[in-house]
C-alpha cells in the first residue's frame, strides 16, 4: 500500500513539474485537470493527493505559489515552476527516459537474442 503511494508520488511530482513547464502557472484544480486529461486513471478517485505533493515540491524549492484569481473569480493558489524546478525537471526527464529506454529494451528482448 505504502509502496504504491511512493511510486505514485514520484511520478506525480514529475507530472506536476512537466504540466507547469508546458502550461505555465496553474492552480491545483487546473493541474489535476491536465494530468487527468492525459492519464485518466491516476485521478479517478484521489485528486486530493495532489496537494501534499505540491507542498513537498514547494518546500524543496522546485515550485513557488501565490494567491491569484480563479476562473470563477475567487481566490486560488497558483503554482509556478522555479529555476531550480526547471533544472530538476530536466534531470528527472533524462533519468526517466533512460530508465524507460532500458526497461523498454528488456521488454523487446526475445529468447533467441540472448543465446
Amino acid at each position, binding site marked *: 500500500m505504502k509502496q504504491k503511494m511512493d511510486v505514485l508520488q514520484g511520478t506525480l511530482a514529475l507530472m506536476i513539474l512537466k504540466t507547469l513547464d508546458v502550461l505555465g502557472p496553474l*492552480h*491545483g*484544480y487546473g493541474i*489535476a485537470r491536465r494530468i487527468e486529461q492525459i492519464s485518466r486513471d491516476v*485521478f*479517478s*478517485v*484521489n*485528486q*486530493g*493527493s495532489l*496537494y*501534499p505533493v505540491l*507542498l*513537498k515540491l514547494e*518546500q*524543496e*524549492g522546485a515550485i513557488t505559489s501565490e494567491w491569484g484569481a*480563479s*476562473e*470563477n473569480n*475567487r*481566490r*486560488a*493558489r497558483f503554482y509556478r515552476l522555479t529555476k531550480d524546478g526547471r533544472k530538476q525537471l530536466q534531470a528527472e526527464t533524462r533519468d526517466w527516459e533512460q530508465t524507460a529506454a532500458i526497461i523498454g529494451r528488456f521488454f523487446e528482448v526475445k529468447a533467441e537474442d540472448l543465446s
Partner: protein
Amino acid sequence: MKFLRRFLTRLANFATRRRDDERLKEEIEEHIALQTAENLRAGLSPAEARRRAMLKFGAVEAIKEDYRAERGMLFIETLLQDIRFGLRMLRKSSGFTAVAVLTLALGIGANATMFILVDAVLFKNLPIADSDRVLYISSTSLETGRGRGESYPDFLYLQSNARSFQSLAAFSGDDVDVSDKSAVPTQVRGGLLTFNAFSVIGQKPIIGRDFLPEDARLGAPPVVILSHSLWQSRYDRDPSIIGRTIRINEIPTTVIGVMPPGMRFPRANELWMPVIPTGKWQKREFRGLTVFGRLAPAATLTSARAELTTLARDLEAAYPATNKNIGIQVQTYNDYFTGRDTRLIYLALLGAVGFVLLIACANVANLLLARANSRIREISIRVALGARRWRVTRQLLVESIMLAALGGVLGSLLGVLGVRIYRATILPDDTPAYLSFSVDYRVLAYLLAITILTGILFGLAPALRLSRLDINASLKEGGQGSGRSARARSLSTVLVVAEMALAFVLLVGAGLMIRSFLNMTRTPIGAKTDNILSMDIILRPSKYPTPQSQISFHQQLRAHLQALPGIKSVAMASNLPGDGWTDFVYELEGRPLSDPQRLPRIGGVVVSPSYFPVLRIQPVRGRVFSDLDGVSGVPVVVVNKTFARMSWPNDDPMGKRLRLVMPPLNTPNAPASVPQTWLTVVGVVPDIVQSDSSEGAHDPLIYLPYQQLPQREMVVAALAVVPPGSLSSAFRREVLAMDPDLPVTDLRTLNALLRERAWPWRIYGSMFSIFAAIALLLASVGLYAVIAHSVSQRTQEIGVRIALGASRAAILRMVFMHGFRQLVIGLVVGLVASFALTQILGDLLIGVDPLDPLTFLSVAFVLALASVLGCAIPACRAMRVDPMVALRYE
C-alpha cells in the same frame, strides 16, 4: 541538498507552529467548487455535481493528515499529542498517579542517594587534568601477596628506564606536627614528594613557587608548600606567609608556596615537603614511596604493567639481597586508594537499591495491569478507528515514561536529601576531604537512564498486552466483566513472586549486616570504659631522644593531670581497648623457634601500672604491674586468659617465661629494640577487646610494663569523677604548658573511640536496613494490591460460592492460599538467590555465616507476616461478601 532544504523548512514550520490548515482548506474548497462547476456544465444536478466532486477529490481528512505530515515534524507532533493526552490521563486518575509516582520516587530516590555516594567514592577521580591517565606504582611481595611501597633507589631506576610514562614522581605520607606562633600546635597529614611531583600532575602553587631540584639536594634548607585549607585555617590567608619560617616536627622550615583550593594530593594532605634522599631513603629495603606518573601518549595500563614487570625482574636480578620476590603493581587511582572492602560494600549497597527499584517497577507494573482493565474499551475503540498497534504501544509507553519522569524528579530530590542525611550521620573524620558528594554529569546521566529504563521496564508488559487486544471480543464484552485474561493474571503473579524473592534477598543482606553489627558491639569489652578521657601524645625523637627523657615527660604529664580537680587516676598505654596493638615476635621458654620463616607473633600492649586500675580490672591470677616493674627486679609480663590458655593449656601460667625476640620489620610504632631477656608471667588478666574489628572472639595478648619498654607514642587515659568531656581543654592546657610544640591528637572519651570502631557496620547496616525496609513495604503493598484487586474482580464468583454453600472459612482459605502460593514460590526463589548473593558479603560479615539459618528463618517469618497482613484485608472483605449484592453486582 534538496533533502536538507525540505528538512529545514519542516523544522521551521514546526518551530513556528505555523498553521497552514487555512490555506489547504481554502484550496480544497476552491478545487471542489471548480470541479462542481465543471460537473454542472456536464448537466448534473447541483447536489449530484457536488457529491461527485467530493468523491473524486478523495478522503479530505486523510489528505489533510498527509499534508500535515509533509509540512512539519510528524513524529514530534504526535509525541507532543501523546504527552498532552498522557498528562490528561494521569490527572484524571490522580490516585493511581500519586501511588505510582510515590513508589517510583522511593525506588529512584534510594538509587540516587546510593549512586551519588558510589560516584564520590568509586568513580570521581582527582581534580586534575586527565586524571585517568595518571597511574600509581607500588611493589608487592610475591610470597605473601602483600602490597608495599617502592624504595628511593628503585624509584630512580624506574624513573630513568620506564618508557610507558612521560615522567615519574613519588610521594610518601606521614603525619607531622606544625607549630609556630599563629596558633596551638597541631598534627596534620603531611607528605613527602619528589620535587617534580606537582608538575607531573600539572598543578602549580597559587602563590609562591613549586619545588626545585635544589630543594631535594642533600643539605638543602628545609622548605614546605601548604595546602589552601591549612593556609586559610591557620594563617588566615596571609600572603606574607611565603618566606616565613614555621616549625614542622620542630624543624624550622621555610614556606615557599600555597597550592590552589581543593588540591590535597594524594588524599587529604595539608602540606608537602621534598624527599631528600638521606639515611633510610638510601636503602633499597626501605619501601616508603608510592610512585606515580602520567602515561605516555601511546601507552596503556596493560602496556605499562608489562613494561614495569620486566623492570621489576631486572631489579630482582641485579639486587637479589633486597629485591628477591618483589613484584610490581600498576593501578589506577581508585584501585590504589579505595580498599576492596569499601568497593564491595558500596557495590553491594548499589545492588540493594537496584533491587528496591525492581520491586518498585514490579509494583507499578501491577498497578498498570490492574488499571489496564478499565482502559480495554478505550484502547479497543482506538484500534477499531484505525490506530496502529505501535502507535497504541507508544502512547502507553509515553504515559509510563511520564510517570517514571515524575517519579524521577521526586526521587532525585529524595536522593539529594538522602545524601544530606548520610553526611550528617557519618563521622566527619571518616570522610576524606577530597570526597565531594556533588551531583555531576555521571549522576545526571545515571538518573536519566534509570528513569527512562524504569518507565520502559514497568510500562512495556502492560502496554504490549493492551495493544494486542482482541478488539472484537473486548468491544462485545463492553469492557467490563471478566476482562482480565488468565495471562494477565499470571503476569501479575510472576511480578509479585519476583518482588517477594527480591525482598527476601535484601532482607537477608540487611539481617546479616545487623547481626554483624550486633556481634561487634555485643562482644563484651571486658573492662569498664565509662568516664575515661584519652588523648594521643607523640614525642618527637629529636626532642626526646632517650627512653629516660620520654619516661620523665610522661611521668611529669601524669603528675600534672593527676593534680587536676575531677581526675581520679591517670594511666598510659600504647593502645587502648579497641585500638589495636603492637606486634612482637616471641618465644616461649622450652619451645625454641625452629622455622625462621614462620615466627610466632603476638599482640603486645605496653601499659603503665595504673592502666588496669583505670579500666577497673582485677587480675584473675597473680598481680598486675607495680611501680617497680621495669625499674628493678626480674623483668615481668602479664598475659590475658586467651594467651594463657593458648600457650600453656595444661599448665599453670604463673611463673612461666617468654621473651620477645625482635620487633617485626615495617611495624609502625615499633620500639627500636626490645630487651631480649626472659620475662616472667606474674599475672593473668581477663580478656579485653583490643582489636579494631573483633570477630567476636578475643585475641591472645600480652601486657608489658611501661618502664621496661618505653615508647614515644603513648595514649593517656584518665579516669574522671566528673563528666570527662569537661576536662578536654584542661588537658590541652597542661600539655601546652609542658611543651609548646607538642600537639594533642584524638582527644576523646574511650566510649567515643569504641563507638567509632563499630561505625562502619552501624552505617552500612542501617543503610541496608532502610533499603530492605522500603523493599519489604513495597513488596507487601504489592501483594496486598494484587490480592485485593483479584478479590474485587471475583466478587461475583465469591458470591456464587457463598450462595452455593461455601463456608466463610473456605472463602478465607481460598484468598489466603492465593496469596500464600505467591509467597511460597517467592521465598523459594529468594532463598536460592540469597545462597548465591550473600557470599559476596562474606568478608564484611563479623561472627556470622553468610548462610546464617537464624537470619534466613527470621526473614522468611517477617515476609510471611507481611504477606498475612497483605492478604488479611482483602480476605476479610471476601468473607463479608453478601451473595445477594454480589449477584446483582453486574
